[in-house]
């Protein structure tokens, strides 16, 4: 008993103290490599039962969802009309900069994956997916679903990858308000595990509830994933009180993920080259680096 307690304490201390490439992390990666195919198989076998359970759960909440979706459709219809006018201008400008060709999501070689394992605790917002390095997935690759940004790859191994969700305490995403373009850093909100907080907005920023938050295409801190610009992340729910931070609800249903896409910027592709360039500059400069400014300098 005492031996097992001591062994647990040694493991915790060693794991917490070592770097991501340390021996215990390597052991974890190796173990995940072995069990990922088994988990994938088990996931396939259990998926009909899981779908049945989910259908029952969805049936209970569908009434509220329909009303909410109808309100959203009405709101989006109005927004669509105004955005269609702006679209022509945007296409013209982005075409000039060749940004659309270089940074469209298709250029990131999206790899579709299924969620095969999920953490039961609220302390780790992570899931395991069934695509890994053999499919081109690497550490730090952005992960999206049909709704928007989901998170990033924390640990990639041959037949799977561990994905850190947006609501994990270690996540920080450089994001901006879609309407005003004001930049900030998006982090999980302490107190409500399923909400985010967009911080460090310029003091004079005016924010309205319902406004969308998208990825900025810049780095919040060195070593972070360079998310492609314009990926929808969340919707502003209310101002957080200080005036320089707002509450954001993630668009992706992070508690009920089944299919995701990993944006794998393969070596040599324009997104990969831009990522490397920005990472180099981010290490040299203390402040965040805008992707568009880097392209301009290049």
């Amino acid at each position, binding site marked *: *008993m005492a*031996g*097992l*307690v001591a*062994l*647990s*304490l*040694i*493991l*915790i201390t*060693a*794991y*917490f103290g070592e770097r991501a490439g340390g021996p*215990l992390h390597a*052991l*974890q990666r190796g*173990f*995940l490599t072995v*069990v990922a195919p*088994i*988990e994938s198989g*088990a*996931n396939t076998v*259990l998926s009909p*039962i*899981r779908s049945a*359970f*989910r259908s029952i*759960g969805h049936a209970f909440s569908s009434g509220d969802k329909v009303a909410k979706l109808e309100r959203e459709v009405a709101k989006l219809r109005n927004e669509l009309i105004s955005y269609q006018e702006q679209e022509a201008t945007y296409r013209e400008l982005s075409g000039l900069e060749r940004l659309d060709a270089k940074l469209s999501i298709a250029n990131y070689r999206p790899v579709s994956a299924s*969620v*095969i*394992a*999920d*953490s*039961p*605790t*609220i*302390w*780790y*917002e*992570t899931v*395991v997916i069934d695509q890994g390095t053999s499919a081109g997935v690497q550490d730090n690759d952005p992960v999206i679903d049909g709704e928007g940004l989901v998170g990033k790859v*924390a*640990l990639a191994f041959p037949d799977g990858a*561990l994905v850190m969700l947006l*609501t994990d*305490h270690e996540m920080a995403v450089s994001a901006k308000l879609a309407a005003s373009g004001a930049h900030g850093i998006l982090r*999980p*909100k*302490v*107190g*409500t*595990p*399923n909400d985010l907080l967009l911080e460090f907005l310029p003091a004079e920023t005016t924010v309205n509830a319902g406004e969308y938050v998208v990825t900025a295409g810049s780095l919040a801190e060195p070593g972070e994933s360079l998310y492609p610009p314009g990926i929808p992340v969340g919707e502003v729910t209310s101002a957080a009180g200080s005036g320089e931070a707002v509450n954001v609800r993630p668009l992706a249903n992070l*508690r*009920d993920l*089944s299919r995701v896409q990993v944006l794998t910027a393969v070596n040599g592709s324009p997104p990969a080259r831009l990522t490397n360039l920005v990472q180099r500059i981010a290490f040299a400069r203390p402040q965040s680096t805008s992707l568009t400014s880097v392209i301009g300098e290049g």
Partner: protein
Amino acid sequence: MAFVRNSFRGNDGVRLAGRLLVLAVASVFLQTGFVSELPMFGVRINLAPLVVAFSGFLCGAVPGAVVGFGVGLLVDLTLGETLGLSSLILLFIGYGAGRLRELRDPEATLLPLAIGGAAAFTFLVGYAVVEFLLGVHAPVSGLELVRQIALGTILDAIAAAPTWAVLRAFLQPAVERSSRRRRAYTTGGLAPRLR
């Protein structure tokens, strides 16, 4: 380690150890691949404390502690979480449940629900305490944490009834064979070869 060897001595002991191993692996895969993907009221049922507590209750304190350590290690390895954390808490749960049986041997219809709830509560509180001690900034307020612990305990207590039924059906035959053999020795009975 001598305690562990004594707990799994002989063919029946090995058979029991094999069943516990199968149970540990199956429960971890069922948890991560199925149960965790079905949140209820924003909380997920956690099978690990239930499986460990019931294993300890049925098989004894030392086997319970070993199963707790093993299941915890598997969970941490499978989900990429801090190695040793779940092991530390679950081995205490397994040992505690085993000691409860050894010292008090309680019998009541709702006992599995009480053990399941207590195991889940211990796991959730223990996990939170260790995470706070490690300085992990989890996105939870005190109130939210209390809600998660309360709901998690209730859900696990509900899930305890079917889990207990499955575990007892799976482990009881091996436990009875193993304990009959041990009792024969300790109470002055003849060794199997001499009977």
